[in-house]
């Protein structure tokens, strides 16, 4: 077993709600703005890829003290779960509106880091650079997932069901990105993520 972030999405395939799927991009806006409010300090820099996750404090704590502060980890886990719930809703995996409290719609399993003691102290300085090839491959997967999303959207509107292959491709792409985030942004693993979906 790898020591990567593992994400489980509760996917609804049948009996989908056509109305909310049709207006999904509009309906997701309120909770999207709520999640975006965590990045309000970064708006000037147009830096939205971190979603408000605490990155620099983690890098400093790991490099200088060799620890991952538990309260920072708790915040990052909670915010990352919220972002994933929003993504699951926007990506048509579920019709349940994303909860801003803890919910079972998405569950994320994190590797054991023993307060940061199992993590290398220096890798946080170069992980962002090492992840560049993963980001490039990820963009290709995102394109693939987008095509599946459009197909899935039409399928739900016509048949009220999301095809297996659409859901599977979208979920695997989301899982792929989460593994990259676990490695390069959340810094909860030193194991280099696989390039495969």
């Amino acid at each position, binding site marked *: 077993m790898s020591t990567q972030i593992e994400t489980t999405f509760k*996917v609804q395939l049948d009996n989908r709600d056509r109305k909310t799927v049709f207006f999904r991009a509009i309906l997701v806006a309120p909770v999207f703005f709520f999640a975006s409010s965590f990045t309000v300090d970064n708006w000037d820099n147009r830096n939205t890829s971190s979603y408000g996750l605490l990155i620099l404090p983690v890098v400093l704590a790991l490099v200088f003290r060799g620890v991952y502060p538990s309260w920072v980890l708790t915040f990052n886990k909670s915010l990352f779960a919220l972002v994933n719930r929003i993504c699951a809703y926007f990506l048509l995996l579920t019709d349940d509106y994303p909860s801003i409290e803890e919910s079972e719609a998405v569950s994320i399993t994190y590797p054991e880091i023993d307060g940061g003691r199992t993590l290398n102290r220096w*890798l946080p300085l170069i992980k962002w650079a090492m992840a560049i090839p993963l980001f490039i491959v990820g963009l290709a997967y995102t394109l693939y997932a987008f095509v599946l999303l459009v197909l899935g959207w039409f399928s739900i509107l016509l048949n009220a069901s999301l095809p297996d292959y659409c*859901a599977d491709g979208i979920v*695997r792409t989301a899982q792929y990105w989460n593994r990259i985030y676990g490695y390069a942004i959340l810094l909860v693993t*030193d194991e280099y993520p696989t390039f495969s979906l």
Partner: protein
Amino acid sequence: MKGSAQKSLAKKVFSLLLAVVFALPTSAFAMGSGDKFVDAQTGLTYAVSRPVQTLGLKLTAFQLLVCAPGKEQWIYAKYGTGIKYVEIMETMAGDKCSNPGLSKSLDSIIINKIKTQVHVYCDPTKSAAFKKCSTADIGKVGGYLIFSTKPTKLLNGTEVQVQGMGGVTYAQLVLVAKSLKTL
């Protein structure tokens, strides 16, 4: 001469830095037996089971999770990625550590001489479909098998939940449950 000596020293320092960066994490993973289930059993008083048959799905997540205060930790294992996966949850018999969600309880079956309850995740708000819901729907909406093993002389009994989602059929779920072996 001085310049080449400096270059050599710089090379050594750089090599040492690289060695530190890439060698440190390996020491952290060198502990334990390498089998997550075996490692988990060492800290638990209830019997841990591991599936032999996993439908070709690889172990992708394993966690020891906190139950209620004063209760023992419980095991969560996930096999598979994407939408098709099997989850195995083990707790001390009698402890309620997780909420499986709303489901329809079907007739119980016997697996490995143990009475096993079958559940299917049909939506109770759709009453007509809910009434017709059967084991055949497990492949579509997911479901789980749940049973409790008896305590042995050394270890307490275990409540085991085997859950399948994203196309795992009832027959496959039974296959995984039948293959569970205590360590």
